[in-house]
């Protein structure tokens, strides 16, 4: 069967910037707001989500001809929940401290709509190669989104980057950046910048 729709390369590139899940589609806001007060938890979350997304996309694509349309969400959720549980147990076994920091947000990847969106939009319709490229691209886009927010929040909120001090001790840590409002403010400013920039580019073109 010839697959229609975007090619693997298009899927891969679209996921990173043009259809960035965090900054363009505004999907997966729960981890975006919840675990971005440090770069380490943000990157761990992005890694766990990437693992689940890639596995779920590949498995869904492999079974796409067998899935009954009206049972597809059930099948997607079953697949996603399995890989989330595996990711959660691995974190508990090999990164217990990080697992405690992320707490319930790892199990909550099950309801991260980025993953179910990619299963529905891409993996259920296209071949394994394209689905895998799509998952990697979107994962990189998600990592970029979480990374951007968490770098700003950790530097301003704690004066550190990945736990290493980058601002002088005299820096008055912006407590608000460690707390939830900092996530909303930073996300809003980044979104504003992205929209302003793409608007300007569209106007020139």
């Amino acid at each position, binding site marked *: 069967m010839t697959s229609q729709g975007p090619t693997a390369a298009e899927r891969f590139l679209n996921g990173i910037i043009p259809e960035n899940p965090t900054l363009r589609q505004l999907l997966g806001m729960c981890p975006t707001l919840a675990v971005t007060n440090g770069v380490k938890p943000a990157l761990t979350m992005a890694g766990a989500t990437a693992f689940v997304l890639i596995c779920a996309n590949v498995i869904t694509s492999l079974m796409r001809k067998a899935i009954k349309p009206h*049972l597809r969400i059930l099948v997607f959720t079953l697949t996603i929940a399995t890989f989330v549980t595996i990711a959660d147990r691995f974190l508990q*076994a090999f990164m217990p401290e990080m697992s405690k920091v992320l707490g319930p947000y790892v199990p909550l990847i099950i309801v991260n709509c980025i993953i179910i969106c990619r299963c529905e939009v891409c993996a259920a319709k296209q071949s394994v190669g394209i689905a895998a490229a799509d998952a990697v691209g979107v994962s990189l886009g998600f990592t970029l989104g979480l990374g951007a927010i968490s770098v700003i929040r950790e530097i301003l909120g704690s004066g550190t980057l990945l736990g290493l001090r980058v601002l002088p001790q005299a820096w008055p840590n912006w407590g608000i950046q460690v707390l939830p409002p900092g996530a909303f403010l930073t996300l809003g400013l980044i979104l504003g910048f992205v929209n302003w920039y793409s608007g300007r580019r569209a106007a020139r073109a």
Partner: protein
Amino acid sequence: MTEATPHGGFWSQSWLVVLLSLAFGAALAAVEITLAPRIRENKRNATVSQIPELVPGAVREASRERVVGGATVLAAFDASGQQVGWVVPAAGQGFADRIELLIGLDATASTITGIYVLDQKETPGLGDFITVRERFRKYFEGQPTGAPLKVVKREVTAGSGEIRALTGATISSEAVTGIVNQRVHELASALAAAAAGSES
């Protein structure tokens, strides 16, 4: 082939779902069997590292596992080898999922010296304050074990047998208090007897 009308029997509809459930279930069981010992080991390390926090004066290295009243508990000793208390694991249903706790008790199990939440999946931003809010843990310190602790929705005084509920997380607060009450009720007298026995 119309989408709206049901067609085919149960198996033609659901074979994939049933197959996936079995396959994923087997995969999860394999992961669980492989990783469970490591996760238990991590929890044990977390437990041991919390001993000085939970029992004042206790030394981390000088703790011993003991079986008291059918439960595995940690006896905590100070630097001179004197038993200063107990660390008792406890678990029960929270608002969202199981809450796993450590309860610190003095040697005669008559006073709670601290609690620590090992594992919880309570609502982020509300129920998870049982771990995040130091204040909530502090309510338990110095509480007598004679009578069950009560959750109240007002300011409390230390050692009064009352725990102040966290705003927006009454169920989680009551769950933690309930788990502590239950465990203390089960083990307090056995622990006191065991401590007295080991001193003689």
